[in-house]
């Protein structure tokens, strides 16, 4: 009896749930053109207005479209907007929408859908944690976010296929922000009919349609035959949810996945494995790992010489070799390669232990004497970061005579403590939300911004980035950001360490993947060719 019950359970999955059935074995049979690659966690939502994590964004970019999108050259190019014009003062964007685009439920897409989608994302009832970051430049957005208005003045439909967005000030990076899912088109009808559970059956305009969301198990997508850029070459995409790194790796080795991520530990082994070494792919990402020296929480960091001494005392090349298998690129400045304004000639504060000791002595701490106890905090369970932090603490002790203890913190607690300004010295990553220098320099280092955990402040730096943020001329704008970056580097606002590089394993049968600095672009052209 029990055996029968157990066997039945295996086949039926979740009998008591009111959500769509949740086991993977009830799905459609995978065709030869079904791409399989893992999701590292359960998707946090299917609502583009609320998404804030990379793995979920990778699902949503297949289901929905925005006005604009990234291409392989890291440029913002048309998507549902066929074209656009910008007013001479840089504040008014007029988008001409493509004709004949349909939601997955067959409804036509009009400018009114974008008015609805943007206002909905801003509405406090939607509880989007990201709308304030990506849509706040729109005139009247702040009022909607604060619950003082129902709609933003700056978003208007001018006819069925013309959308006008007015900004509070000219912002050269505005189009980049529109690539983020918060600004994607959602179907009002689907949301209103679906009620609380509309995200179980999301309706977008994207190249794929959600076929099945088996919670904690699998996400299946099938090609949208009516996609406005033409039907994708793949029939479907299967995303098994695999939390365990080793499981993902083993499934790739066993031919059960076409692609997977690779940890630095595995990379060492895989690059020497004759079966796997040719399947490794290395990608730079628009992210920097850095050490923040919090000037408020730790007064010695208010002295520029101390901060410079710390910079000169860290031998990044050795650390990258020892802890990171020489994969990531050393960071001399703040802006990662690929971000407009990245300066390949920026030398930064080079490794020079002699100079470091001298600067520390000038600051009043000869040989590290009298320097208060210091703790370097970083996110727990990150083996690569731990190795890096240990070696860096050794170098600081050897080169400056300063004892640095290490503290690993649970991620939530780490963010809490960091946001409250309690961490004096921490090792963290910042990844671009959009490919613009403003997202690094103005957001992270301008006086008083919420992300400026180092409490760095330099009026000249602020003046430059403020000017650049609203400047229309792209060339002059980049020059201003470059100047600002050099100031921050000379001031030793941070210890920039390295730029993120991801390693993946790919089955050779996977073809046509379009890649950008932000990650894989939607699999509109991807196909499988050959044994897989």
């Amino acid at each position: 009896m029990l055996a029968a019950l157990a066997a039945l359970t295996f086949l039926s999955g979740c009998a008591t749930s009111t959500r769509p059935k949740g086991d993977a074995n009830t799905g459609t049979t995978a065709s030869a053109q079904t791409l399989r690659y893992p999701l590292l966690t359960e998707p946090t939502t299917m609502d583009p207005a609320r998404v804030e994590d990379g793995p979920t964004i990778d699902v949503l970019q297949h289901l929905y479209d925005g006005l604009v999108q990234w291409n392989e050259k890291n440029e913002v190019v048309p998507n549902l907007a066929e074209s656009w014009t910008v007013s001479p003062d840089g504040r008014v964007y007029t988008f001409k929408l493509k004709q004949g685009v349909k939601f997955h439920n067959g409804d036509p897409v009009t400018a009114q859908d974008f008015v609805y989608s943007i206002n909905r994302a801003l509405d406090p009832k939607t509880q989007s944690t990201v709308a304030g970051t990506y849509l706040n430049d729109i005139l009247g957005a702040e009022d909607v976010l604060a619950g003082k208005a129902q709609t933003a003045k700056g978003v208007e439909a001018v006819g069925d296929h013309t959308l006008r967005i007015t900004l509070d000030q000219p912002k050269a990076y505005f189009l980049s922000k529109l690539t983020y899912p918060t600004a994607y088109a959602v179907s009002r009808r689907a949301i209103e009919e679906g009620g609380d559970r509309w995200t179980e059956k999301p309706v977008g305009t994207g190249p794929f349609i959600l076929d099945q969301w088996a919670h904690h198990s699998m996400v299946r997508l099938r090609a949208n035959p009516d996609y406005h850029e033409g039907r994708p070459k793949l029939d479907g995409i299967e995303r098994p949810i695999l939390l365990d790194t080793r499981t993902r790796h083993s499934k790739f080795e066993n031919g059960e996945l076409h692609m997977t991520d690779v940890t630095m530990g595995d990379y060492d082994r895989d690059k020497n494995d004759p079966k796997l070494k040719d399947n490794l792919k290395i990608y730079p990402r628009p992210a920097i790992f850095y050490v923040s020296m919090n000037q408020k929480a730790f007064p010695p960091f208010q002295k520029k010489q101390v901060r410079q001494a710390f910079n000169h005392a860290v031998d990044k090349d050795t650390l990258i070799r020892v802890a990171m298998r020489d994969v990531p690129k050393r960071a001399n400045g703040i802006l990662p390669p690929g971000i407009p304004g990245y300066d390949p000639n920026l030398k930064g504060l080079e490794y020079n232990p002699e100079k470091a000791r001298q600067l520390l002595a000038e600051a009043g701490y000869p040989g590290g004497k009298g320097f208060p106890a210091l703790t370097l905090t970083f996110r727990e369970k990150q083996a690569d970061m731990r190795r890096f932090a240990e070696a860096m603490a050794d170098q600081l002790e050897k080169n400056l005579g300063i004892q640095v203890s290490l503290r690993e913190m649970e991620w939530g607690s780490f963010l809490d403590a960091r946001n409250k300004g309690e961490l004096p010295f921490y090792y963290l990553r910042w990844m671009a939300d959009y490919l613009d220098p403003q997202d690094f320099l103005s957001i992270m280092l301008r006086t008083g911004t919420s992300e400026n955990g180092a409490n760095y402040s330099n009026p000249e730096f602020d003046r430059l980035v403020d000017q650049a943020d609203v400047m229309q001329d792209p060339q002059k704008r980049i020059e201003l950001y470059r100047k600002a970056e050099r100031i921050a580097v000379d001031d030793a606002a941070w210890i920039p360490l390295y730029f993120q590089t991801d390693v993946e394993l790919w089955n050779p049968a996977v073809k046509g993947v379009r890649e950008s600095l932000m990650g894989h672009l939607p699999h509109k052209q991807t196909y499988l060719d050959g044994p897989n």
Partner: protein
Amino acid sequence: MAKYVLHRLLLAIPTLLVLSLITFLLSALAPGDPVALRLGQHADPAARARLRHELGLDRPLHEQYFTYLGNAVRGDFGKTYRTEVPVREIMSEGIPYTFTLAFWAMAVAVAAGIGFGVLAAVYQNTWVDRAAMVVTLIGVSIPAFVLAPLLILLLAVRLGWLPVAGWEGPQYLILPALVLAGRPAALIARLTRTQMVEVLRQDYIRTAYAKGLTRGQVIRRHALRNALLPVLTVIGTAFGYLLTGSFVVETIFAIPGVGMQSISAIFEREYLVIQATVMLAAVGFVLVNLLVDLLYGILDPRVRAGFRRKA
């Protein structure tokens, strides 16, 4: 008998109450603010205050606890902070997977454990005995997070006999069930051997042989039935292991059961899911132990007499 069952169930109430209080307090004191989880770190203070009120987080801790308890008794464990999905629904999705895995793991554990134990006892002090005990020693000592990758590497990656992980057909159940069964099988085998060795020395066994029964008949009809009684207790304890072990095994083998959901909940700081899992595990543990005690009574007349006296 009914009174005994009632008595046992009443005894379980204080245990569950204490456990609910501990898990509630741990969740309340754990770092991370549920309001910040839903609205983000830099949300408008008024919106944060509004949501805090809606979730009842602005009320005194004891009030929050009693509300939680009242709702939990009715099977309402609240909604997840981030996605606002009822926790009861998440649990009901996960339970069938965990149950199926636990059932087959237990079936493997009982069959292998009793088999190895009997063999070791019957061939006591021979190489069979020693080999069985070495295997079981390894079974007891080796944790699931070590055994699982080893078996994956051998049976899936190297030999290609089985899939690595997932839940896409019966063949996907074999590896996780084997891994999860390892430790309880070893415990059952060691206890079965001890009991069998003891029973095989008894006079009635000698009498059975004297009556002309074969070794197989003696073992099946006389020795095994008596030796298995204490093994039942281990099965009860092993159930607890299966629940905790499923956290690791479900994560490694990507089985969307309660264990994997809990691991996700821990990463996402969805404390209500964790609370519900702990309570569910506790209730399951209490019920299985009660069931084992009742089975004991059915199998052993002496215990049955005890029920009557207590009642």
